[in-house]
């Protein structure tokens, strides 16, 4: 049997609440500058939570150009197009007509999306009583919009990005809630290993910062209600944490088969070395307090990468800032790291940029690659009060210089899907 193919990270692109590209995002995360504020893209004044991590003043026209493409792209797909274009430019490689079939695409994407305006129109024709009446749809005044129909598809991002960039090989969209982005990158790793592609554009995009999405998370009681103090609302692992801050954005990586990347002289940020993937199968909303589920994902990821806790220097935690997630994740970290728990640096960059839901795992994978390149463990911001249930070695106060031999990135989703990715220093 041939030796297993290795995978290099050679390009990074991001659109996040703390920056419209990867360098700005990384600079702000290193400095601990947050993107959490009062919601201003719609009137959130009567919601229990009125704060979020918005991508502010995003110049879609300037970043994407193509007007027709823009018309077919929802807000989150616009983020995806911009982040993917940045990743390609960064890597200095793109699919060409002769090799587009060897390029793959894997993405963690949001659910089917309908804008509030579109929903409001259907309400006017079909729902004035409050109940849906399909007869309104065949009212001659009601005009279905085929472009909106295309935008709404759960795989519309896949359709537009593969078309725009000429990716003609393996393509998939996955959705396991907050684990989506991590699982999409894990899938990309496997697709290159098994030879179904040589290069993959892999990432995630999401935007649930709209009245429907905000309602959904408010009703679950998952969001912080620190409306008067948004900057500190996301404080993962702090004893006073009280929920996450809903964010939006996109992150994409260019992944290449290792030898080919080396041969073309590409800059390699890090090796995407392992993937671990488990189901907690506990309760639909709750994380198991014991860390069961995330433990298996982390152990598998280490094993898959040929690593032990001895080799690890940094973990980018899922760290949502909810009571339950952070406690469960720390139990898992203690179980997996064992006597290394005091030495392996842990931080949640959601403290600065909020929770990007389906995009979170992809953006955070990019952060791990940048952390390895620069030898910096980014700060776990907004932390003041220790929680005895969260006694792991957090990066507190400021980002810390640290040579990172290997790192993990956790993404733990509603419904119990757990993803853990492992990264290695390319020089080792």
């Amino acid at each position, binding site marked *: 049997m041939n030796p297993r193919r290795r995978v290099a990270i050679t390009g990074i692109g991001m659109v996040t609440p703390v920056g419209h590209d990867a360098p700005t995002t990384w600079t702000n995360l290193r400095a601990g500058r947050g993107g959490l504020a009062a919601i201003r893209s719609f009137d959130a004044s009567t919601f229990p939570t009125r704060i979020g991590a918005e991508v502010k003043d995003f110049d879609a026209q300037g970043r994407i150009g193509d007007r027709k493409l823009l018309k077919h792209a929802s807000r989150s797909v616009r983020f995806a197009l911009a982040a993917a274009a940045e990743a390609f430019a960064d890597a200095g490689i793109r699919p060409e007509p002769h090799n587009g079939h060897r390029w793959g695409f894997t993405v963690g994407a949001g659910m*089917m999306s309908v804008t509030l305006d579109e929903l409001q129109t259907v309400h006017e024709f079909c729902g004035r009583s409050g109940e849906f009446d*399909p007869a309104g*749809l*065949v009212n001659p005044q009601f005009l279905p919009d085929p472009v909106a129909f*295309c935008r709404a598809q*759960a*795989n519309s991002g896949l*359709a537009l990005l593969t078309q725009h960039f000429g990716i003609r090989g393996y393509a998939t969209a996955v959705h396991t809630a907050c684990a989506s982005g991590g699982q999409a990158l894990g899938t990309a790793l496997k697709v290159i290993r098994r030879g179904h592609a040589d290069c993959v554009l892999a990432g995630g995009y999401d935007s649930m910062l709209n009245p429907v999405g905000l309602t959904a998370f408010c009703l679950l009681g998952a969001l912080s209600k620190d409306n008067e103090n948004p900057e500190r609302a996301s404080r993962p692992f702090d004893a006073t944490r009280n929920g996450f801050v809903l964010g939006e954005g996109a992150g994409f990586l260019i992944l290449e088969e290792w030898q080919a990347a080396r041969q073309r002289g590409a800059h390699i940020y890090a090796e995407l070395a392992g993937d671990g993937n488990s189901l907690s199968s506990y309760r639909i909303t709750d994380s198991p307090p014991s860390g069961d589920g995330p433990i298996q994902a982390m152990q598998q990821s280490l094993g898959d990468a040929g690593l032990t806790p001895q080799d690890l220097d940094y973990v980018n935690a899922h760290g949502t800032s909810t009571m339950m997630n952070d406690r469960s994740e720390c139990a898992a970290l203690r179980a997996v790291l064992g006597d290394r728990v005091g030495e392996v640096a842990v931080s949640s960059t959601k403290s600065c940029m909020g929770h990007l839901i389906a995009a979170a795992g992809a953006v955070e994978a990019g952060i791990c690659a940048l952390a390895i390149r620069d030898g910096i463990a980014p700060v776990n911001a907004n932390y003041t009060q220790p929680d005895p249930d969260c006694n792991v070695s957090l990066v507190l106060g400021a980002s810390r210089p640290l040579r990172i031999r290997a790192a993990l990135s956790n993404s733990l989703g509603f419904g119990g899907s757990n993803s853990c990715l492992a990264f290695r220093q390319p020089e080792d």
Partner: protein
Amino acid sequence: MITGTGAVCGAGLKIDSIWDALVQGRSAVAPLSRWDATAWPVKVAAEVTGVDNRTLVEDRKLHKLILRTDLFGIYAAGAAIQQSGLTAHRDALDPAAAVRFNDRCGVISGSGGGTYQNNYDFFPAFTAVAGDLKNFGAESCSTVNPMWLLRNLPNNVLCHVGIRHNFKGTNACITNQCVGGIMAVAEAAAAIRAGEADRAVAVGHDTPIDAETMLNYFQVGLMSPDALRPFDRRRNGTVFGEGAAAVMLEKAEEAAARGAVVLGEFLSSGCVAEATGVLKVRPDGDGLSRAIQVALDEAGLTADSVGMIVAHGNGTPASDASEAQALQRVFGKNLPPVTAFKWAFGHLIAASGILDLTLALKALEQKVVPGIPTLQSLDPEFSWLTVRPNAQPARSDVALVCCRGFGGMNVAVLVRAGTSPSGS
């Protein structure tokens, strides 16, 4: 190895009854019953009717937490797991071995990713604010079901199958429109081959019979007003169905060691994008022909070893014509018998490919390639296509299943007949 299958659709609640409908030429496509479609451009669908939700999933508490699509998926996955006999096998293990067993059980789902009607739960809030969206938050947060998001998660089947059967291994929920379900099978098989799991259940589920979805499909020219006629010269679009299908896969050695009945062998898959945007397909069948070639190469087979083909055959003018081109390109004059199943139970979107796959196994077992009764006059543009209104014999024990979807997606899967009697 495939050791269990399960399905539900308009044609039946069991693989065997769906198969009987196929070979007897019975279609479940009927006038829409869910709403008054008198004034509608589309008047038919293959609905699952006369089935109590508790027949599908006994646990009534669960019904409040999930959607109709999830009921179908949980039911089909349960049937596949049940047929495999794996639960009884696990129950006989010692506790430590059972823990290890569960950690090595994967769950991969292919989900439609949501329908328009999920959002109608916000209508009372719109009505209450009467156009003043400032108050929307207060109204929506007091009128919408607090569990709304959890009910609408595309990955619900994955979670609940995991919880109900205590499967805790590798997992994914594929939201890649029509090809989601069949990709779930391909990913489950890949996970087992790569050693990430010892066994995995793959399930696809969907409920496209949703008023706004149907109207939109009609507007873009994809829906037939009356019937699904694959490859017929008068074909005028697809017809929706609803339901789910599931496949239990496990390592060959393990299936053999516990003496499991093998229903079939997953050989290989090809998955490619045509990079044509959401709706367009290439007229030359480029994507599908490449997907089939990838699958053949991976299985180490040549085109002439394929004994039968279950085409996507969704009945739309462009998809069927380009599919015929793709088959011509790969098989040339050596095309084995081709059939398509959607005339009988409609197009199940995310569940379509995996349902076709479960029935392809049945066809291999029975050595019968069912005919297409709605095919009255083969389109002369591809007169060489080996589709027939009546049944044909399979040429070998290998079947090719084709599945195509929005986003220019094309997936081809090769399966081989099982070696043991299926006991059906």
